[in-house]
């Protein structure tokens, strides 16, 4: 309750306070936020101002989906190296960070959305992709769309600990938000695919997700005249193809599934009032004593690396026969050795791809942006709240000796935990809601 009130307060401050035009806080500046600005020479100032201009451009363009997004550089604005050794006075007992924390990419504003060279964004693609995202006819039984498990009202996840999956099945992993997924180069919880296009393909055809047949989908679209026109407009193609379906959906996600208006983003852009005092303390903990930044680093707040957290098992796997089916099925279709299949009792994450024992249970670090809307958390949805997540890390994760060495007991005080939570909540901007579009209909051909 308290943190919710603080969040509201922080929002209203954000909305009413004039934007600080003096300079842009980059990472080092953030650390020094409460004591004024760090020392910088004019060259640094110029760089950061450019970064600010670029960042706010991107913010504006993402709000209205401009065609020129595609044309822009995908390079992140330059960021100074983090200065984690600076004493900022925001916390009385910030642990001296170890070298791991020193060398990680700094937090910062999201760069422009990366766009693959073979799929530049256009408004026509975005408009088409928006329709397709909501269209059940991309699934086998025409009963499931992308939006079934990536629901605007549920943070573009599905609000379940473990996703519902295709009819007649239950999925085995948490449905991740599609917000800011455009920034990842490793999609899905175990980073199985490299692009949004590939992600959409796996989701549409996966037997526990869309169970779609690609040729059936193409033929369905071919008998929807409005789609035929939209594909022609977007791609100059005389018939809708599955590859173009993927490109359109990915373009829609790159254009409209971007959140970069969080209080923390405002703070990074120079509005030092955008974060509450508690959130600022939380930021310091995030980068220091709580060590979150070891993995949740860079503008995306994910190192896109794989880590084993030794999370508690989700009890659903003991209670729901269809979850057990899904878990064994995953082992089976990914081709694990028989003894691994026979003993399957948990999601093996990266192991499915590499078959290396050391990769068992390792999952790709998720972003922390937009997390206010995306509970429950973790690949198996085992934590219902941000506070649960913090407690898990505070106790040093699980018991498994081979869990990531980055995870150690943190000895956070209750105040520190709530400050950290406060900071984490500041990573979510306004909720992105997209009206469910009216979908075009099948039309019979003229018969002689």
């Amino acid at each position: 309750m308290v943190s919710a009130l603080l969040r509201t307060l922080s929002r209203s401050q954000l909305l009413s306070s004039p934007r600080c035009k003096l300079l842009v806080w980059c990472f080092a500046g953030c650390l020094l936020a409460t004591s004024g600005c760090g020392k910088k020479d004019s060259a640094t100032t110029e760089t950061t101002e450019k970064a600010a201009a670029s960042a706010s451009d991107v913010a504006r363009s993402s709000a209205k989906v401009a065609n020129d997004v595609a044309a822009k550089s995908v390079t992140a604005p330059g960021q100074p190296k983090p200065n984690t050794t600076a004493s900022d006075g925001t916390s009385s007992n910030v642990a001296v960070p170890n070298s791991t924390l020193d060398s990680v990419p700094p937090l910062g504003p999201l760069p422009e959305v990366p766009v693959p060279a073979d799929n530049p964004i256009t408004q026509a693609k975005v408009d088409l992709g928006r329709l397709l995202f909501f269209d059940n006819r991309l699934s086998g039984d025409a009963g499931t769309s992308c939006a079934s498990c990536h629901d605007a009202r549920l943070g573009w996840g599905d609000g379940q600990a473990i996703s519902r999956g295709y009819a007649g099945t239950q999925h085995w992993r948490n449905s991740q938000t599609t917000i800011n997924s455009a920034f990842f180069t490793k999609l899905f919880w175990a980073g199985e695919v490299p692009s949004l296009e590939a992600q959409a393909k796996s989701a549409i055809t996966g037997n526990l997700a869309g169970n779609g047949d690609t040729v059936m989908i193409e033929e369905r679209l071919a008998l929807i005249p409005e789609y035929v026109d939209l594909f022609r407009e977007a791609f100059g193609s005389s018939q809708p193809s599955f590859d173009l379906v993927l490109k359109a959906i990915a373009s829609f996600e790159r254009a409209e599934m971007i959140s970069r208006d969080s209080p923390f983003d405002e703070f990074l852009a120079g509005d030092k009032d955008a974060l509450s005092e508690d959130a600022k303390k939380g930021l310091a903990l995030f980068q220091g004593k709580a060590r979150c930044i070891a993995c949740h680093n860079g503008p995306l707040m994910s190192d896109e690396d794989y880590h084993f957290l030794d999370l508690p098992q989700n009890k659903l796997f003991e209670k729901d026969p269809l979850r057990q089916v899904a878990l064994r099925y995953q082992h089976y279709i990914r081709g694990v050795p028989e003894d691994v299949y026979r003993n399957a009792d948990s999601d093996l994450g990266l192991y499915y791809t590499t078959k290396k024992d050391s990769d068992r249970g390792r999952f790709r670090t998720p972003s922390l942006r937009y997390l206010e809307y995306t509970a429950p958390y973790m690949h198996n949805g085992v934590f219902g709240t941000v506070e649960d997540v913090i407690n898990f890390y505070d106790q040093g994760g699980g018991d498994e000796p081979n869990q990531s060495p980055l995870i150690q007991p943190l000895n956070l005080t209750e105040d520190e935990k709530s400050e950290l939570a406060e900071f984490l909540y500041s990573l979510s901007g306004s909720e992105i809601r997209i009206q469910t579009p009216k979908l075009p209909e099948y039309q019979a051909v003229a018969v002689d």
Partner: protein
Amino acid sequence: MSRIFGTLTILLVVASSVARAQSEPRLLAVLPSLGKTLDPAQVDLGRQLFFDPRLSGDATISCATCHSPEHGWADGIALSKGYPGTRYFRNTPTIVNAALGRLMYWDGRLPSSDLPTLVRDHISEAHFLQADGRLVIERMRQVPEYERQFNSAFGGEPAYGRILNAVAAFVSSLTSQEVPFDKFLAGDEAAISDEAKRGLAIFKGKAGCIQCHDGAMLSDGKFHSLGLNANPEIFQDPLRHITFRRFFRTLGVPDYAAMRHDAGLYCVTKVKHDRELIRTPTLREVSKTAPYMHDGQLPTLEAVVSFYNSGGGPRASKDARVKPLGLTDVEQADLVEFLKSLSGKPIEVTKPSLPAYQLRKLGDN
């Protein structure tokens, strides 16, 4: 001189008997036996699987959805319903006597001698059950009663090959029982009515049905066009047309999008003169499997007889043997009576109560 005539006569007799052997239909005959013994445990397991919707992608339809005992092991509708979200473009044939035929599907693309492959095709096809076999296995493994039954039927746990073999065993077990016409052929003169006997004569004679519906299965197992126009519903209903397009595209028919007639055998052979040729179906059990023809456009046996009597359909692909027959109303009725004598007593199968999913001990797979 007389020797020459004698030799010529012998040659002519030989030649004409060869010609007769090539063109004359095979004799009608009693239903052959399966020629192998089915394992009762496999048949029992297959029966359950046949009725189990967990063999479909979304676990809502089973084999029995379209091959229902109440409809002569077909579905009683013109065009088959298909997987949810799709609608099919052909009529569901009965599976009774499936193991005794030569080829399966209206285009004959699979052999009856390999029913497990036929079952596999149905489970995996996007317009039928749209299921991944590996998912079906894991579902079966989540049902302890199935684990027990697979063990007793196959000596091992559920596996895809075993699933296919079990369903195939059950399908093989579905053969006509106590068919009046077979009893008649075996010497029981009273087994069929006088009308049916007259109908049999018309079948073999004036109506010429036997030219294609010959032999023990009353099918030559070959492909013909009756000149039928397509059932317009296939193109009036976008979902049927979509399935039609996808099917022929998948089988490599180049003009699938412009096509407004079932390509028939052509989709298998890609030989031009095989266009629109459809496999002759068996007439056994025919009175139970209305509506008729590959796209179900004729609702009754009377309509079928009337169709042939009027010389078939208008398409240019029509077989030359399909010509107006000049049958009287009585002759047509007799013919229908004969056709009815080809069905045995109903094959009644109690719909099995399906064993439920149970929890397994996690990690003990």
